[in-house]
């Protein structure tokens, strides 16, 4: 019951945040000297009627505050307007967001599966050759520009022919069986996942190592050792549980970093995700699409943090008692 109350409180806190985000984005975009309907006007397949409707919907002839109110109203109704190609923004987003979520979820799962054990190993063998090797490897992983790494992998894919170059599905995707489709998507995901995995693994491994080192230094671990517990029990029953908790807070940040990092990776691999969508929208100065994708990015980020917080109150009983 208390947990539900806490979650509700957090959701309520997110609302003013989203309003400020929308205000910031709206004013940044309206600051630009670009005519938001320029592309639409030039497109011969867009009828005069649609144009008129868009001008009215955006309230372009009215002051900016009224424009914002109009935008906010239709946003709440779920009407995000149309793109400069005349497609509905909401359809476009529905098509792209799952792809980005798929990519980031896989990357987060993988980094946790690999990064946490590596962090533990490095902390338990502090200052050993293994620890040093991992430090060197993570430094290298942190220093490669994501787009450069993506380009290198793309060249690798072209030269060897082992991986498809770009996209999420092959051209004969629809003719495949369900298993074939899953394998096809997995095949396309390998390279983008590799790039983002390398990028975020380093930070996670280092944080895990630092946390565990701190915990191993604390009094209760010394006490557990003093009373003669086996090393295994000390590390895995006592130390680890406490070292993991700060990592969960980090999950939200990791998600934020991935959304940003994914944009360049998606662009190089021509992956149909939210990051590439917003990039294309920006280049075409497609205002509706930019605004909607910005909001979606912010909502995803806030949700990611919310999920991390909820996970934290489940794993850490101290927060349940004090904060709720």
């Amino acid at each position, binding site marked *: 019951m208390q947990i539900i109350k806490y979650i509700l409180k957090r959701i309520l806190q997110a609302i*003013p*945040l*989203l309003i*400020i*985000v929308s205000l*910031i*984005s709206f004013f*940044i*975009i309206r*600051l*630009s*000297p*670009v005519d938001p309907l320029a592309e639409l006007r030039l497109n011969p397949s867009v009828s005069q009627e649609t144009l008129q409707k868009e001008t009215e919907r955006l309230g372009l002839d009215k002051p900016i505050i009224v424009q914002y109110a109009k935008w906010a109203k239709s946003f709440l109704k779920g009407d995000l307007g149309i793109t400069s190609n005349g497609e509905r923004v909401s359809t476009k987003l529905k098509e792209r967001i799952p792809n980005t979520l798929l990519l980031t979820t896989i990357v987060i799962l993988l980094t946790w599966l690999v990064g946490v054990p590596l962090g533990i190993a490095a902390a338990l063998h502090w200052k050993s050759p293994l620890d040093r090797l991992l*430090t060197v490897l993570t*430094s*290298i992983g*942190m*220093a*490669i*520009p*994501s*787009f*450069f790494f993506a*380009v*290198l992998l*793309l*060249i690798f894919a*072209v*030269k060897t022919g082992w991986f498809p*170059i770009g996209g999420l599905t092959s051209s004969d995707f629809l003719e495949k069986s369900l298993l074939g489709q899953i394998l096809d998507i997995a095949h396309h995901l390998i390279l983008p996942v590799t790039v983002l995995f390398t990028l975020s693994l380093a930070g996670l491994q*280092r*944080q895990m*190592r*630092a946390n565990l*080192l*701190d915990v191993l230094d604390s009094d209760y671990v010394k006490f557990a050792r003093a009373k003669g517990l086996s090393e295994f029990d000390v590390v895995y029953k006592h130390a680890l549980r406490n070292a993991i908790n700060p990592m969960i807070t980090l999950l939200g940040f990791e998600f*934020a970093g991935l*959304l*940003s*990092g994914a*944009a*360049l990776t998606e*662009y*190089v691999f021509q992956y149909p995700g939210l*990051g590439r969508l*917003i*990039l294309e929208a*920006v*280049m075409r*100065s497609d205002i509706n699409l*930019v605004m909607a*994708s*910005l909001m979606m*990015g*912010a909502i995803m*980020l*806030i949700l990611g943090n919310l999920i991390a917080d909820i996970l934290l109150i489940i794993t850490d009983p101290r927060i349940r008692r004090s904060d709720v």
Partner: protein
Amino acid sequence: MFKEVMKKLWDDKFARISLIVLGLIYFALFFADFIAPYTKDFSDRTMAYVPPSKIFIIDENNHLSRPYTYNYVRGFDEENLRITYSLDRSQKHYIKFLAKGQPYKFLGIIPMKRHLITTDRGGRLFLLGTDINGRDVFSRILFGGRISMTIGFLALFVLFPIGLLYGGISGYFGGITDTVMMRFAEAVMSIPSFYLLIILASILPSGMTSVQRFMLIVVILALIGWAGFARVVRGMVLSVKTREFVQAAKSIGASRLRIIVKHILPQTTSFVIVAMTLSVPSYILSESGLSFLGLGIQQPDASWGNMLKEAQEFTNIIYRPWLLTPGFLIFIAVLAFNVIGDTIRDVLDPKSRTN
């Protein structure tokens, strides 16, 4: 304290190598006009995508000779429909050191003609090949590095005062001021930073001079990072403001701004130094990513990011791998900054063991 940090850095093997590498890079960038065989604006349209010049020190009779190079001549491969380049072995061009070449202004002031390395008139020396416009990649790397390696620092110098003051005011005043200011900072942090970056860059008007554009990119980079920094500063201010020396300053009637700037913010110095060294590389990466997309530094100016723009066409890269050099340089520079940042953190903050 500075001396002690430098000594610790020098004692650490990796940090020492990083310092030397960065020193060499900045030295080369400072003397770019002199080291580069060609000037910033040089381009030879007939020499697009020429591979790196081959330098010979053993001549055709197997004798040791002064280093020389051959020019490339363009040909056309009818079978594969590709332009090819082959060495024109009819004429040797000797490589000359400290000889007169294209005139330039050293550091923009002193007119000079001598270049560290060049070749005789009529010869072309492309140490790292050329790009699509027949510009020397080696020279452009030097000039582009000036932008890529300074933009991060400049952004930090814009960002840190803002973050410090914002966090300082928010933490010290508390109450409703704090709530409003922090909600705003959190909202900025809730927009995925790269999304915000490309949108801000895309609304820049197109008719700007390269200096204006450079300064605005600096401001944009700073706008992305201040919020997170301000939040941390606020946290530190909250813990400092109840200390006795703050009470003392208050009781002698110091103004609130004076207390924040003179008494509270100096307490955060070591954190600021660590945060600064650790965030330089991320700004170098942001700038290169932005320029890679064509939203940052624009042609004809060079930056390591926009030189890699040509790498977007992977067919380009498979036949012309020398165009990838700026990417390796970004990697080396960022790695060196990271190693130094980690070492400084260990020295200033022995409790944190993230590295």
